C-alpha cells in the first residue's frame, strides 16, 4: 500500500498578538514545528505500513524552511518526501492551497491512500483535506478514530460523529483525515535521523506542475480575500451577585438560559 501523508509546518507558538494602535501583528518567537495534528496522521500511516507493508511518503507545501519537518518525518520512519514550494504560492487560501497540493501530489507519487491531520494550528480550518480529495476526485472520510482493517481494494475505518460511530468501507484510492489520539505518535529515532541527513527531498515548483496557469495559485487563485484584521473585542463580564438565594437562583437560571445551555 502506498500511503501519502500531508504535513504542514506551523509556528511554534500561537501567541500572536495584535497591536491595537498600529494594527501590526506580533509573533513572539519565530520557531516552527510540524503541525501537531499531522503527527497523528503520520503515525497512522507508519502503523499501516508496519502491518500491511508498502511505503509512507510525505508531502508539504510551504517555504524552503519547511524541509525541516520532512526530515523530522524521515526520522520517524517516512520513506520519501516532497516539498511544494514557490514564491508564486504565497497568499494561498484554502482553495489555492488544496489545488496546489493536489497538483503536487499528482506529480510526486502514486498513492492508494492519503492521510491528513484533523486541522492545522495556524490555518485551523480542517478544510484542506476534503478539498484535496475533491480535486483528486477520490472519496474522503473525515474524523477517523480507528482503522479496522485493510484489504486489496479498500479500507475499513470508524468515523466519529457527535452521537454515534459509523463503520465505513472506503475504496482505494481515498483520503482520510484522522482525529488526534488515533495512535500515540512515536518519537523521532536518533539512528533514522542520522541516516536521513543526506536523504533527498524533492522540491516541486509551479513549473513542475501539469497546470501552470499562474491565475490558479497564490493570491490570484484564492477566491477569499482578507479585507482587514483586528483584535477581538473581549467582553468578559465579571459580576458578583449578593442577594437572597431565591433571587440568586433566578439570576443564575436566566443567565444559563441566555447563554443557551438549556436546549
Amino acid at each position, binding site marked *: 500500500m502506498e500511503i501519502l501523508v500531508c504535513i504542514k509546518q506551523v509556528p511554534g507558538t500561537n501567541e*500572536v498578538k495584535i497591536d491595537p494602535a498600529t494594527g501590526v501583528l506580533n509573533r513572539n518567537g519565530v520557531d516552527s514545528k510540524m503541525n501537531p495534528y499531522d503527527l497523528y496522521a503520520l503515525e497512522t500511516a507508519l502503523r499501516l505500513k508496519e502491518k500491511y507493508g508498502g511505503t509512507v511518503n510525505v508531502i508539504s507545501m510551504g517555504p524552503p524552511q519547511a524541509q525541516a519537518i520532512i526530515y523530522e518525518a524521515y526520522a520517524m520512519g517516512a520513506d520519501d518526501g516532497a516539498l511544494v514550494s514557490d514564491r508564486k504560492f504565497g497568499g494561498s487560501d484554502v*482553495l489555492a492551497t488544496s489545488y496546489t497540493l493536489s497538483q503536487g501530489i499528482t506529480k510526486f507519487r502514486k498513492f492508494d491512500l492519503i492521510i491528513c491531520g484533523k486541522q492545522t494550528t495556524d490555518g485551523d480550518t480542517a478544510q484542506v483535506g476534503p478539498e484535496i480529495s475533491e480535486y483528486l476526485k477520490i472519496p474522503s472520510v*473525515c474524523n477517523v478514530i480507528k482503522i479496522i482493517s485493510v484489504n486489496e481494494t479498500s479500507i475499513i475505518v470508524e468515523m466519529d460523529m457527535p452521537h454515534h460511530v459509523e463503520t465505513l468501507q472506503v475504496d482505494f484510492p481515498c483520503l482520510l483525515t484522522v482525529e488526534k489520539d488515533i495512535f500515540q505518535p512515536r518519537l523521532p529515532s536518533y539512528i533514522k535521523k542520522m541516516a536521513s541527513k543526506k536523504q533527498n527531498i524533492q522540491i516541486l515548483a509551479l513549473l513542475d506542475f501539469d497546470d501552470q496557469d499562474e491565475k490558479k495559485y497564490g493570491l*490570484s487563485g484564492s477566491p477569499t480575500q482578507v479585507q482587514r484584521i483586528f483584535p477581538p473585542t473581549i467582553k468578559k463580564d465579571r459580576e458578583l451577585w449578593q442577594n437572597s438565594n431565591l433571587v440568586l*437562583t433566578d439570576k443564575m437560571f436566566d443567565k444559563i438560559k441566555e447563554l443557551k445551555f438549556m436546549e
Partner: protein
Amino acid sequence: MAKLIVHQEKIGNIQELLALCPFSALEEENGQVKINSACKMCQICVKKGPSGAVEYVTDTVKQIDKTQWQGVAVYVDHVDGVIHPVTYELLGKARELADKINQPVYALFIGSKITTKSHELLHYGVDKAYIYDTPSLEHFKIEPYAAAFEDFIQHIKPTAILVGATTIGRQLAPRIAARFGTGLTADCTVLEISENTDLVQIRPAFGGNIMAQILTPNHRPQIATVRYKVMNIPKREPIETGEIIACPINEAKLRCNVQVLNVVPKEKEKFIDSAEVLIVAGRGVKKQADLEMLKELADLLGGQVAATRPITEAGWLDAKHQVGLSGRTVRPKLIITCGVSGSVQFVAGMNHSDVIMSINKDPKANIFHVANYGLVGDIYDIIPKLIEKIKIAKGVSA
C-alpha cells in the same frame, strides 16, 4: 497575477521593514529586501511600511455577473432526518441577510425519508425548501451528498450558502467549494452582507487572538460554515410559510465508493476534558450522597461532574474527575463551581473556560476573582431550586 513589488530605494531602514512581517516572509539578500513564499499577502508591509516601499499590484480580473446568483441558502444538517438545531440558527441568519438584499431564503435538505420532516423548516422563514429524498441518500456519504448539493447549486444558483460546522458540514462544504472553485470561510462568528451581495465573513484567524474580515468578491456561490450556538435561533412561527419542492436526481449521479457497514450509538462522553459543561464539586459539598444533586444538574445541562482535589482524595469521585494542576486542565463552555474556594492549583486547571459561574458562601473566596458570575450563597439552597426551575422550563416532570 496579484503580487507585491518591493521598491528598494524607498525603504530606508531595512530591519524595521523586515520586523513588520508576522510571518517572516520578508528577508534581506545582499542588501535587498525579498519576499519569500511564507508570504500570506496580509499586506501589513504595504500598509505599515515606509510609504511606497512595498506595492500591491493586481491584474484586472474579469468581474463576474453577480445578478445571476440570487438567494441565501442553508444546508439542512441532520442525521437520519433529525434536524440539527444549528440549521434553525442559520435559517434565522439567512433571513436577516436575505432581507437586506431583498432575496429569498432557501433550504437544501438531502437524505432519505425526509420529506415529511421538511415541514418544520417552513416555520422558520424559508421561502423554498428543496428536497432530495431517495433511498440511496440514506446515511451521509460524501460522494452522493456532494452530487445532490452540486445539482442544487447548478439549478438554483444561490449567492451565498451557509453550512453548520458540524461533522457533516465540515466534510461537505469544502468538497462543494472545491467543485465550484469558490471561496469557503470556516467557522465564521459574524456574518453580514453588503448591497452588492458580498458576504462579509468574520472569523478568528492565524491561530491566534485575531479576527479577520474575509470577502469572496469575485466568486459565487459564497460558502461559509458556522458553529452551533454562534448564531441565535429565531422564533418558531406558528404557521408554515413557503413551499417544499421535490428535486428528482438521476441515480447514476449518486454512485459511491463508500459503504456504511455499521452505525453504533455512542456511550455518553465520560471524560471531563471534552465536556462542554462542567459542574465542579468542592469541599462545600458535605457528603458523598450530595454529589447526586450536582449530577442531576449536570445531566440537565448536558454536562458532567468534576471535583477539586479534596473530593477525589476522599474517594467520592474517581481521580480522573479532578480539575487542576495535579488533575486535568479543562476548557468547557460553561463551568459552575459549587463550594470551591479557588486555590491557585485549582484555578490553573480551569481559568480558560469560556464562562465561569461560582457559588460560594464566602464573599471573600478567591474563586470570585476568576468567576464571570459569582453568587454569594449556599449551594444547598440554590442548586435544588435551580434544578426545579430547569425541569419546569424543560417540561420534565419534577
